[in-house]
């Protein structure tokens, strides 16, 4: 048992580090925190992010696990993790390519034909074209296969109508992956087809949605008679659910997802505020809470290390990795609430000049609810763990064995 790299891993790490040293600056205290939901992506930041991605691609450090013939480096998953660990030590622009490179790319590489791979992969890799995921709809989120947007064949094209929602980054993306219903008479999962859509097509309308923290990371996207050439269909007609599963599996495989919790910051806060005339850090109730957050945060990190060891031994992480987001996001939310509680009445301020840590904790408190919903809600993750890890019986369902159009439903959420 050890935390050391193997000689090959160490050599790879050194190579990554030397390239990064030559091309970026190390992070220092006060650098902006990671923008996981892409909310701060102004046009200026998008440009910076694209420039950094291009630099990485030119240097051979983009999409490391992808096959060499498509511009990747064909490295092992563990080497990719090493790269991510190293890159995260540097002050780089926010990663706005997570959906494209983490989910769309692998899906195209798995289900696309040769022409499609050649057409989309290189531009995606260099960051010149950014991608979004058009899956969720007003009536279909957790129950993604309940989606209703339609595609009707018309010669060499398909005509798409309907609405997508919660589409992160749609406002700065050129391409999107799209699942739609091509056969409403088929059973729910059998009637879906998967496309790649040009976000600048006539009939695509993007409207930003404002989140509870005031940010606008996601959008609703309306499709009115949008024409998509059949050449942009991935895999067979009616096979959309299988393709979507590939996308969703890759979403889960993008491991890491630390809670972003900085205990130094929390301890500093507990030292700087007082309870009964003494630093809060000396208060036993405060200490009990901090210890709990820390133990859980380590629990998530150490479980991640076990996953990395499995990767390093050539195993593929499965649904067990759901633990990280399920425990980590809630722990981070509790921590933010606690840090605000420590501030007393000042917990209700958000003014950066008057609030401890420039209101960072309040900001997290408003942002984290999104993390507990995006990419599988807490409840869906518990379903996944109980059914796929623990082998417990599946939910009883009211949508099996009937045509999609006959499935009971309520009004859309929005």
């Amino acid at each position, binding site marked *: 048992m050890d935390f050391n790299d193997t000689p090959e891993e160490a050599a790879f790490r050194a190579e990554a580090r030397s390239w990064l040293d030559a091309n970026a600056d190390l992070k220092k205290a006060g650098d902006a925190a990671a923008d996981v939901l892409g909310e701060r992506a102004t046009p200026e930041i998008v440009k910076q992010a694209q420039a950094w991605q291009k630099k990485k691609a030119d240097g051979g450090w983009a999409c490391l696990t992808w096959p060499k013939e498509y511009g990747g480096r064909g490295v092992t998953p563990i080497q990719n993790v090493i790269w991510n660990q190293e890159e995260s030590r540097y002050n780089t622009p926010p990663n706005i390519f997570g959906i494209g490179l983490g989910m769309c790319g692998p899906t195209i590489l798995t289900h696309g034909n040769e022409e499609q791979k050649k057409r989309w992969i290189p531009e995606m890799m260099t960051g010149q074209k950014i991608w979004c995921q058009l899956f969720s709809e007003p009536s279909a989120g957790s129950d993604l296969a309940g989606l209703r947007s339609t595609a009707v064949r018309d010669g060499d094209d398909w005509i798409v109508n309907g609405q997508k929602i919660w589409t992160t980054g749609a406002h700065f993306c050129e391409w999107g992956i799209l699942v739609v219903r091509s056969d409403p008479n088929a059973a729910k999962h059998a009637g879906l087809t998967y496309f790649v859509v040009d976000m600048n097509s006539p009939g695509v309308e993007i409207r930003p949605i404002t989140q509870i923290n005031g940010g606008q990371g996601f959008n609703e996207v309306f499709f009115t008679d949008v024409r998509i050439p059949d050449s942009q269909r991935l895999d067979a007609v009616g096979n959309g659910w299988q393709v979507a599963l590939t996308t969703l599996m890759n979403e889960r495989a993008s491991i890491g997802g630390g809670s972003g919790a900085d205990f130094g910051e929390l301890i500093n806060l507990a030292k700087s505020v007082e309870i009964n005339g003494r630093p809060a850090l000396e208060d036993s109730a405060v200490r009990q809470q901090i210890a709990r957050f820390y133990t859980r945060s*380590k629990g998530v990190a150490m479980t991640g290390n076990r996953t990395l060891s499995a990767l390093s031994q050539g195993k593929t992480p499965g649904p067990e990795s759901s633990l990280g987001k399920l425990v980590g996001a809630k722990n981070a939310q509790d921590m933010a609430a606690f840090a605000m509680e420590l501030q007393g009445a000042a917990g209700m301020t958000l003014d950066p000049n008057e609030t401890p840590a420039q209101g960072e904790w309040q900001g997290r408190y408003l942002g984290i609810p999104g993390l507990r919903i995006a990419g599988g809600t807490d409840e869906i993750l518990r379903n996944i763990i109980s059914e796929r890890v623990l082998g417990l*019986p599946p939910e009883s369902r009211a949508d099996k064995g009937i045509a999609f159009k006959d499935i009971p439903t309520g009004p859309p959420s929005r």
Partner: protein
Amino acid sequence: MNFDFSDDQKLLQQTARDYLTEQAPLSVCREILEGDQPFKKELWAGAAEMGWLGTVIPEEYGGAGFGHLELAMIAEELGRSLAPIPFGSSVYCASEALIKAGTDEQKKKYLPQLANGERIGTFALTEKPGQNDVESITAKVAGGQLSGTKMPVADGDVADFAVVAAVGDKGLSLYLVDLDQSGVRRTALQALDPSRSIARLDFDNAEATLLGEEGQGAALASNLLDRAAVLMAFEQLGAAQACFEATREFTLGRYAFGRPVASFQAIKHRLADMWCELEMARSNAYYGAWALSGEEPELPMAACIARIQATEALDLISLEMIQMHGGVGYTWEYDCHLFYRRAKALGAALGSLAAWKDKLVDRI
């Protein structure tokens, strides 16, 4: 990165599991819980024969000379079987103390017999309810004579000697005290978990020999608690794993409203949460084992997170076990209460959860 046990270590674990499945099914734990015997003597002899008692004792003192990673694997299996033997007191506490702080002479005197099971040792620290610090210890040693009371002392009724924390001329120190002498009165106490025995020890000018440096008792005790906490975390982990598996199985087999109880989401989601707690307990325990086996500077922190998560996981899973069994879970006849009791016995043995959390904040 290789944050995992080696194949050899896993093989050792499997051997331990096979042996205990055969020799220590839960009926053995229950036999001690219900009977008059303080511990299962045959199993103790078996543990000695398997070489488990001397796992980390150096070969020159009659042990196997393995490391703490191997001992952790055995601890997990003993936890899984709820083995009713004084393993924790004798191995995680007394043997560790002697290996860490004993003189060559003391090691020669005690270790070979600790390894072969002829002697049982224990650790006597606390004196009264609510005590979680060493500063308030009042037992005294003057002129090599110990006076005072230690309560509760795990396995204090069956141990041959104890490592006792007491105040000497130069402040808190640790002492070796043979318990079969006229200055020692032992009183067995009723235990919440009668499959493990506990006692009150009254010392009246009992002979005591210094263990380790005089006046260094606080630091030494703290280090010994950290070491024991990591090993006991594996015992807690094993118990929690067994408890979880039994609960999962029961809910799959039990039907209500025409379907398995395990198909209700209220049960599924709680089992998922229990599994998360269990996995984190495993991960933190591994980290503790890594820190202990390499004597890493992270040990004080790692021991805390291993201890805290293991205690919380076993607490949660053992009480959910009863709940998810329904009425039978509340019966003497079913085994749920064996885990419920053991959870609290292990969780209290090295000081309360709150005390470990408090320590952790200083060690972050």
